[in-house]
């Protein structure tokens, strides 16, 4: 099994009383709640945490992109990746991912990954995402064209990485008269592409297609949903006539390893609640702008809206019970991961070991315990 140490870089010094007066930590949360000095301290802590992942034996460091939110301080994740390249030697660095439809010139994404890949001598993994719904409010990009723009930007970037230039790219949303990348990526044919997703069936089928076989990561979902989506990927691969490799099946999950189940919950319970309730949660008008999902998917989602329990606060107990978070003793955490591995065959585990307001000291202990008590069991 491969292990990624993934980070969202939340703004931990959040005044939660103020935060809860607003409808989300995204888009509409007044930014006078942000303090630049405290922000600088967050970056320092988080870069130290991610850098330590190399010595702790992780295979990959993962960062990601979100805009106008206290949920994550990485509107430009490639800047963080660039800093990490300078602080590490061998570990892979995954940007999980860049939100392709949000840019009006995907050439920048192709260029930046090519630079990072070269500067790291081939250590980059390129995650391609669509961004979450709120980001279509933040950027003004029309969500009705989100899927189209994603596919087209993907085609442009991969062509820019692989086809001899100069050539012309003719699209609906993107038109580039001269595609001629300098520098080109270090890896041949290009950095691996991973597709983190919350499981839309369109994305699953697209990622599993034989000409792509992109590793698919299910993010922040219950045990049942992760199983469902990874099974859907496996089934899609079979539909295409091949068997998905375990490395194509990924699960992104917050994990906390404590001495005992009770201690783990006492140490991480509030932090995991802040992740889901205070940092991540948004009203559906923000989360699911029309077109972000296909119309049939959205119609099905809205019919089940009552069942999704949107709008109510989730407790640590619920998040642990349904497997959205893995929190417990080393034995419990090993069992939970093994259970998912047995159910799906996944071999790509993306752990988030700092989440919500979890402090530096507990994060360090969590990372060390995960490295010592969990990883060797799955190697």
């Amino acid at each position: 099994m491969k292990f990624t140490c993934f980070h969202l870089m939340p703004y931990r010094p959040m005044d939660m009383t103020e935060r809860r007066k607003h409808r989300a930590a995204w888009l509409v949360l007044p930014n006078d709640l942000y303090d630049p000095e405290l922000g600088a301290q967050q970056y320092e802590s988080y870069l130290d945490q991610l850098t330590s992942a190399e010595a702790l034996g992780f295979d990959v460091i993962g960062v990601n992109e979100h805009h106008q939110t206290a949920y994550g301080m990485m509107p430009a994740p490639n800047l963080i990746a660039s800093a990490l390249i300078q602080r590490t030697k061998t570990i892979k660095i995954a940007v999980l991912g860049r939100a392709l439809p949000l840019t009006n010139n995907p050439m920048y994404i192709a260029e930046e990954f090519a630079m990072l890949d070269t500067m790291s001598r081939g250590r980059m993994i390129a995650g391609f995402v669509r961004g979450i719904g709120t980001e279509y409010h933040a950027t003004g990009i029309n969500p009705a064209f989100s899927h189209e723009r994603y596919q087209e930007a993907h085609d442009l970037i991969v062509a820019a990485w692989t086809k001899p230039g100069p050539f012309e790219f003719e699209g609906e949303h993107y038109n580039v008269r001269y595609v001629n990348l300098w520098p080109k990526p270090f890896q041949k044919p290009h950095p691996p592409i991973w597709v983190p997703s919350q499981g839309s069936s369109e994305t699953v089928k697209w990622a599993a297609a034989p000409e792509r076989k992109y590793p698919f990561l299910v993010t922040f979902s219950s045990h049942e949903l992760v199983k469902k989506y990874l099974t859907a990927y496996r089934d899609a691969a079979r539909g295409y006539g091949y068997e998905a490799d375990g490395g194509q099946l990924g699960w992104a999950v917050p994990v906390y390893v404590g001495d005992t189940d009770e201690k783990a919950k006492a140490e991480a319970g509030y932090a995991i609640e802040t992740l889901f309730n205070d940092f991540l949660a948004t009203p559906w008008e923000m989360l699911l702008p029309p077109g972000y999902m296909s119309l049939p998917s959205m119609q099905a989602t809205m019919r089940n809206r009552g069942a999704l329990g949107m709008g109510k606060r989730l407790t640590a107990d619920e998040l642990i019970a349904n497997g959205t978070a893995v929190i417990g003793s080393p034995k419990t955490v090993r069992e939970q991961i093994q259970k998912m591995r047995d159910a799906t065959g996944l071999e790509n585990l993306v752990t988030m070991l700092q989440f919500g307001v979890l402090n530096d000291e507990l994060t360090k202990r969590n990372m060390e315990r995960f490295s010592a008590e969990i990883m060797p069991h799955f190697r």
Partner: protein
Amino acid sequence: MPPPMLSHEVRGVKTRMMRGGAGEPMVFLHGAGGMAPWGAFAETLASRFDLIMPEHPGFGGSDTPASIRNVRDMALYYLDFLDALGGPKVHLAGTSLGGWIAATLAVRNCTQLASLSLLAPAGLRVKGIPSGDNFIWNPEETARNLFHDQTFSEAMLAAQPTPDEQDLLLKNRFMATKLGWEPRWHDPALGRWLHRIKVRTLILWGAEDKLFPAAYAKPWGEGIPGARVEIIPRAGHLLHIEKAGDAADRIVSFAGGRQP
């Protein structure tokens, strides 16, 4: 009595429409929420006109053709629609998104139009006077902000759409997003060409409109030569519902139509 829902086809695009009354033809283009029910507004217009209320492509029970990606496409589709109607010149009216479509059509070609009535049309932006963001309003805010008289809001909130109706509302919302998300509810080029509208034009606006503030009426009035601007007091965005009788009377009074 609402007329039956008809099926209509123009160059391979099937849409639904309602048609009732008698007189010179009037085509009414609905807003982003979808085809308006045949109520007091339609009854008043149908007492003077042959009222045609099409449902836009992409909405409700109509086809969603790949060829219609923005309001300019939609306006050209409606020129095809008018060609297919044949017959005499039509009185064209539209509310909100429908007003934007009607104005975009008229900028391109007025030769088939007898008059133009725009009810709080989308399509222009007034810098410094932001429109409301109906894409981020929750259902409660939407109902509150679309009407000045909150009894209409209460009725909207009390309505319990069936799952099938809910699906159609979502379909409408998808198409409205395609047409109006970015640039938000306007076409930066439209204001430069309003002088091309060479047909008698009425602009109606609710004084208390929270989606497109009444100040938006001014550039419309200034841009369209000879346009008549009327502001309806104590009214919100959906004039054809909240001020059904008043708005319809003003259109009749402006556009004429046969005597009852």
